[in-house]
């Protein structure tokens, strides 16, 4: 699984100038817009996207706002429209907020797709998803129950921010899973925001453990949150009493997975997601049809849902102390 991702490391620098020179000799220009630049998750996908750009010989421009602010993100897209790129792939902070600007892009004859987080279905040609949100949320829920080794008990939910659309979707899905299949699980309080900061997640977890002494599990969505939660569990030596499951990158999780303070990190290879996004971008630009079950180089087999729009990269990867070391993101 990791092989392709592995080759991406180090290639970055040389990838940089290649991309730069690329734009001159009329290569396809594919813009990939993350929610914001400068967080580990989107850095990982950047690596993948750039790498894919080299492999597929297209000019990948990976740029986004420095804050997860809708207004700032729209600006970025508008500037990209001015640059007249061929494809814009966006991970919207606030899906609705990019509707108008995406319309504009389409009117300019730019291909529009979304990735990581769905935008307005009617505007995008394809929707590149790591995975189906519902499946993912439920999967994390199952993993937590698994780790707890019981279907009874109190759990708490940490989230990156109260207003992160996709996190909210996952949490809803997880809650559905608990309600439907694990009536014994009690969620002690509203989801708790952690400002996308490990430190905050850490402190909140400490407080949680204190105010809910018989807490059995913590579900932490957004990449820094599981680390903070695990750190708290680790420090208080509660590895055996409290299970932590969440969405985090394997390399970051490693130290916590090793001693069991973090039981399972569930995620996909963001690099691969970036690569797939670029690949899809290239195909639509070149008018190649995308079919269910087709092999994408460096990504693997993909599935296309009935709606014919949603491209699913594949099942989430579960990172545990046994396999986490093999990954490079």
């Amino acid at each position, binding site marked *: 699984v990791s092989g392709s991702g592995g080759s991406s490391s180090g290639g970055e620098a040389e990838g940089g100038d290649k991309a730069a020179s690329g734009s001159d000799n009329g290569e396809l220009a594919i813009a990939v817009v993350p929610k914001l630049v400068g967080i580990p998750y989107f850095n990982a996908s950047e690596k993948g996207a750039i790498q894919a750009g080299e492999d597929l010989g297209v000019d990948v421009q990976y740029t986004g706002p*420095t804050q997860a602010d809708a207004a700032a993100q729209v600006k970025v897209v508008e500037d990209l429209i001015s640059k007249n790129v061929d494809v814009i792939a966006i991970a919207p902070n606030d899906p609705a907020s990019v509707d108008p600007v995406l319309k504009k892009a389409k009117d300019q004859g730019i291909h529009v797709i979304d990735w990581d987080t769905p935008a307005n279905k009617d505007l995008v040609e394809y929707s590149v998803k790591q995975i189906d949100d519902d499946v993912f949320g439920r999967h994390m829920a199952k993993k937590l129950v698994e780790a707890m080794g019981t279907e009874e008990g109190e759990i708490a939910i940490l989230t990156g921010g109260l207003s992160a659309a996709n996190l909210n979707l996952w949490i809803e899905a997880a809650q559905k899973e608990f309600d439907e299949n694990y009536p014994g699980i009690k969620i002690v309080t509203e989801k708790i925001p952690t400002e996308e900061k490990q*430190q905050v997640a850490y402190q909140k977890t400490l*407080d949680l453990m204190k105010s809910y002494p018989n807490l059995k599990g913590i579900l932490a969505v957004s990449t820094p949150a599981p680390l903070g939660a695990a750190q708290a569990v680790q420090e208080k030596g509660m590895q055996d009493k409290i299970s932590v499951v969440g969405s985090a990158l394997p390399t970051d999780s490693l*130290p916590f997975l090793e001693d069991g303070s973090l039981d399972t990190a569930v995620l996909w290879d963001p690099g691969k997601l970036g690569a797939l996004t670029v690949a899809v971008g290239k195909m639509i630009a070149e008018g190649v049809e995308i079919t269910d079950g087709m092999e994408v180089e460096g990504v693997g087999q993909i599935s296309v849902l009935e709606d014919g729009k949603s491209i699913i990269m594949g099942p989430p990867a579960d990172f545990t102390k046994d396999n986490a070391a093999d990954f490079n993101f």
Partner: protein
Amino acid sequence: MKSIIKQKEFSIFVIVVLLSIVLSFVSPVFLTFENFLDIIEGNVVMAILAVGMTLVIITGDIDVSVAAATTAVAVIIGSLFGFLPDSWISILILFLIAPVIGIIIGAINGMLVSKIKIPAIVVTLGTLNIINGLVLYLTNGQYLNSTNFPKPFLTFANFELFGIPILIYLLTAVAILTWFILKHTLIGRSVLAIGGKSQSAVRVGIDFDKVKLFVFAYMGFLAGVAAIAQTAYTKAVDPNGLLGVEMMVIAAVVLGGTNIQGGRGSIQGTLLGVLLLAIMQNGMILAHIDTFWQKVVTGAIIVIAVSYDQISYRRQQAKLAKIEVEA
């Protein structure tokens, strides 16, 4: 009749005590020693920065670049970790390098404020943008975890004496040092003097620029120390970890009775201010306050506290204005 400062410290002290009493009723764990340690350790970084900010605000200035500076230093020491040997020397080196970098950043602010006479808020707003931008560009937000930290640093980070984490001793040291400077050294008294009346300060031969430079450089120095504390506390370097902390630092200092117009302020008060905010955060969950209302509560308490403080300060001034009238 002791000075107003004391009284201000007292009023916030009362608020803290009341809040604690309430919380200890709603949650049994609140008053536990463990919880107390967690609260303090969790706010060591904020407290260290607040202590430095106290001096800045006493001189009537403000520094909104502290969080950025701290992050910058943290990132730099993070990148050094790769090269540092797995021996105690590393700790030593860190404690040498981090403050120095901090001082350099602070000194630049200080220069622009004292020599070029650009208002502090503008200068630090500028450096805030520059530092954050550079950090983001260079690290790309890359998050470093403890795997490549030198082992001694982790030992240091986890070290406890009499069951009290090292960081709390670090904070205590910083607080006492700063208190001592402010209260028992020439430069410290000059800081209070400048804040009290700059015209008089010039007349009695206090070197205005030098003091301002010192204040900002010292703020930088503490930012350096805070960077070590941050790294030790999170056992990771997160370029985004401190975004927006500066405002809370300022709030804490002012809640602690330091007068934003300058002249008044004490370390004791600032520590209380930090404690108040810390207890509030900690209490939110312990008191089972609905997530979505926590910020409302925080904001309300800040607004109320600063208003209350202003009102009592005015009363004081009114008293002082009186003249003796024949009956």
